[in-house]
């Protein structure tokens, strides 16, 4: 062919595709008012809330799966899927009756056997669940809507365990999905929650889409965190992953997204100046920064090295690096429990208070026998909470004279590597950074437990801490709980289960035309509506 024909045919093909692309604007307009675009704290790389303990997975799961009970804004468990429960007088038999009309997203009704299977899977991975399982006599479905849990000893905190919002949350899945091994990920995402997960439109790293489940029957009470009626006011929720805070901030100002879960504090002044954006504290119960050490291998296998860290670290440095100059956003934290809650205590926290003493820290480190071996630090670079903490830590360790092996990896890989118990130098680790939601930090939390091999990553083994946790569980009054918590705090600080880097608050930001956003430990999508 000659050149002219060639070029003409190419041009022709081009115009055809262009014309074919025009669509009717009217349809798109009708949809936007019922679509909520949300920027989450991290990518939804996997979606199994029992297998993975990342908060972002839990937050998305709260839309797709429902729970038997749910914490309300006073951290008290209230009925959600359960219509009524009964405890025998000896406290050993718990009978639960599900509400009628509950359906899964595939149309199947929610049956008691689904609840039983889900409870089994959850209990295998959850601290409280494991405790209940240890006492279990039988867990069985009595009929389609009733199931019974018989224990050998009373467990008064049963409803708290079933309704808590700390990971893993006790989500109810269809029995066939819950039959998956708790140490493997599930392959289907079918739940009975108010939103369906639209798997076809899921782009890991880019977008996750949820659509309203029309057959969901909310409770008739007003909603309060995970309790009450979950009335959805929008038809479609799009989670748009934006790793670049600058882009997210610009998108929020331009109206291209509606709600940003955690804007970094530095851009908040800019957002406040924008006429169409509202900014407020996301969760008054805040977060606690965590410097988690590996108790299995040196240097942190020796308590003196761990206390050296506490002696030298400056919580102010960590907190300023995290949230900037606004002092209302952070507090020093001489312990492991959330300021503002009844169980807050500072007992034993003197080591974290007062001027920092690097010389004493270096002496302690030398006493522990540290001889210059590399200290592997797993620092998630793409997480706005772990990266600044990591930078401060590397600087701190260097000033203490330690040989730092800085593993600057992504948050997902931190999750994979921290589970590995091999020695450092063979793929293991000696410290990593993370954070715990303030709402989670009490004696039931996995972070404070020190039962060796079964403990959370870091595997601390401190009998005294475990004894105080047990004491808390046996406490019958608030005063007893407080006493147990005080002793727990002291023991945990003396043995340094982990090093708290401070207490801090975070913001959330949304467009003015979005209403119904409440403060809480996770973003609650029910009750949120959007005007055009």
């Amino acid at each position, binding site marked *: 062919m000659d050149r002219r024909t060639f070029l003409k045919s190419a041009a022709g093909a081009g115009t055809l595709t262009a014309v074919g692309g025009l669509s009717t604007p009217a349809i798109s307009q009708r949809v936007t008012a019922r679509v909520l675009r949300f920027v989450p704290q991290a990518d939804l790389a996997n979606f199994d809330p029992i297998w993975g303990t990342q908060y972002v997975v839990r937050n998305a799961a709260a839309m797709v799966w429902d729970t038997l009970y749910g914490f309300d804004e006073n951290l008290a468990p209230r009925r959600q899927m359960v219509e009524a429960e009964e405890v025998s007088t000896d406290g050993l038999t718990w009978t639960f009756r599900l509400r009628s009309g509950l359906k899964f997203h595939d149309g199947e009704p929610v049956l008691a056997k689904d609840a039983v299977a889900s409870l089994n899977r959850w209990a295998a991975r959850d601290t409280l669940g494991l405790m209940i399982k240890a006492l279990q006599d039988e867990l069985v479905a009595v009929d389609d809507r009733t199931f019974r849990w018989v224990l050998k000893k009373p467990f008064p905190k049963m409803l708290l365990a079933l309704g808590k919002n700390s990971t893993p949350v006790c989500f109810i899945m269809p029995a066939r999905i819950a039959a998956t091994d708790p140490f493997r990920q599930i392959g289907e995402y079918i739940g009975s929650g108010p939103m369906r997960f639209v798997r076809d439109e899921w782009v890991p790293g880019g977008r996750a889409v949820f659509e309203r489940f029309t057959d969901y029957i909310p409770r008739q009470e007003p909603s309060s965190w995970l309790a009450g009626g979950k009335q959805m006011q929008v038809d479609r929720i799009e989670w748009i992953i934006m790793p670049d805070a600058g882009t997210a901030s610009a998108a929020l100002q331009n109206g291209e997204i509606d709600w940003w879960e955690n804007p970094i504090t530095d851009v908040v002044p800019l957002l406040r100046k924008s006429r169409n954006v509202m900014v407020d504290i996301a969760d008054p119960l805040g977060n606690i920064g965590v410097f988690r050490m590996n108790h299995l291998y040196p240097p942190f296998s020796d308590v003196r090295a761990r206390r050296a860290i506490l002696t030298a670290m400056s919580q102010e440095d960590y907190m300023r*690096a995290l949230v900037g100059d606004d002092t209302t956003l952070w507090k020093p934290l001489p312990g492991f429990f959330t300021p503002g809650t009844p169980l807050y205590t500072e007992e034993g926290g003197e080591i974290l208070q007062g001027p920092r003493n690097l010389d004493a820290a270096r002496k302690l480190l030398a006493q522990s026998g540290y001889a210059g071996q590399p200290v592997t630090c797993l620092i998630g670079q793409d997480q706005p909470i772990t990266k600044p903490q990591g930078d401060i830590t590397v*600087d701190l360790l260097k000033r203490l004279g330690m040989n730092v092996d800085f593993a600057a990896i992504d948050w997902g890989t931190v999750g994979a590597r921290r589970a590995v118990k091999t020695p450092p130098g063979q793929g293991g680790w000696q410290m990593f950074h993370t954070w715990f939601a303030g709402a989670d930090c009490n004696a039931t939390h996995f972070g404070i437990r020190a039962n060796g091999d079964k403990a959370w990553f870091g595997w601390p083994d401190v009998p005294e801490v475990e004894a105080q946790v047990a004491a808390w569980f046996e406490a019958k009054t608030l005063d007893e709980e407080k006493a147990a918590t005080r002793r727990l705090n002291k023991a945990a600080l003396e043995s340094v289960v982990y090093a708290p880097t401070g207490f801090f608050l975070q913001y959330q930001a949304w467009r003015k035309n979005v209403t119904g956003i409440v403060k809480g430990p996770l973003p609650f999508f029910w009750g949120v509506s959007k005007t055009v």
Partner: protein
Amino acid sequence: MTDLPVAIASPPIGFAAAPEPPDLLAPVKLRRGLAGFAWRHPAIAIGGALVLAMVFVAVFAPYLATLDPTAIAPARRTREPSAAFWFGTDMLGRDVYSRVLYGTRVSLTVGFAVAILASLAGLAIGLVAGTIRWADGIIMRVMDGLMSIPPILLAVALMALTRGSVGNVVVAITIAEIPRVSRLVRSVVLSLREQPYVDAAVVAGTRTPMIILRHILPNTLAPMSVQATYVFASAMIIEAILSFIGAGTPPNVPSWGNIMAEGRALWQVKPYIVFFPAFFLSLTVLAVNLLGDGLRDALDPRLAKRL
């Protein structure tokens, strides 16, 4: 008007005088020395001067810097440029000015190292491919294969195998740049092989290594040095991009790419953290490109076609 046999006093009436012929033999005003060189080759002059300035900054960074570039001080984070902090502070309170100065070291080191290593390796490979015929096919297929992989992706893939460090970045970028240099050297060698004086040397019994050393090698130096400057510039940009996406030099090493990567979350409120290293990087790359262009024009105008 010199030695005409008949003196023509003035033109006859009615004829216009012919215009004065231009003074073809008037002496050209020679500008000598460095100033003259700069006048004739402005690209080399400007580019070279800027590169030298950057080298100076890199070498004397400890003396030019006002503060320790790695000193963290969260109490004074994200301060605007001021008398105390000429370029402001970043989100950990480090002085951006000092970090940018030290960043010059990393970026220039990466640039130089890659340029030199890629040139040496490319030279060796190109020479072998050009002179040893049976090796030519295989080598060029391998080089073509490597060249098919976009350089950033190649560097990214190589960095995925190891942890971030300046050395690994240099190796990764070098591997990405070698194919182009080797192609160039090979094409020069191939064209030189046809030259009569090379034929004559072969006939005279000169052995191949000697031919390479005396005839071929000197002729490759000109195009290679021009290509080396382009490799230098490209290496600096690739390093910046690698650091920007988190696959380059480790975060505790101040390189321009790193400083920009860390500052990018704040670019709307504190644009200076991104702006200053960006300016330095652009200026240096510009200077190196100018140098390369000037060298190319000065050394051999025919190179303009090939490069």
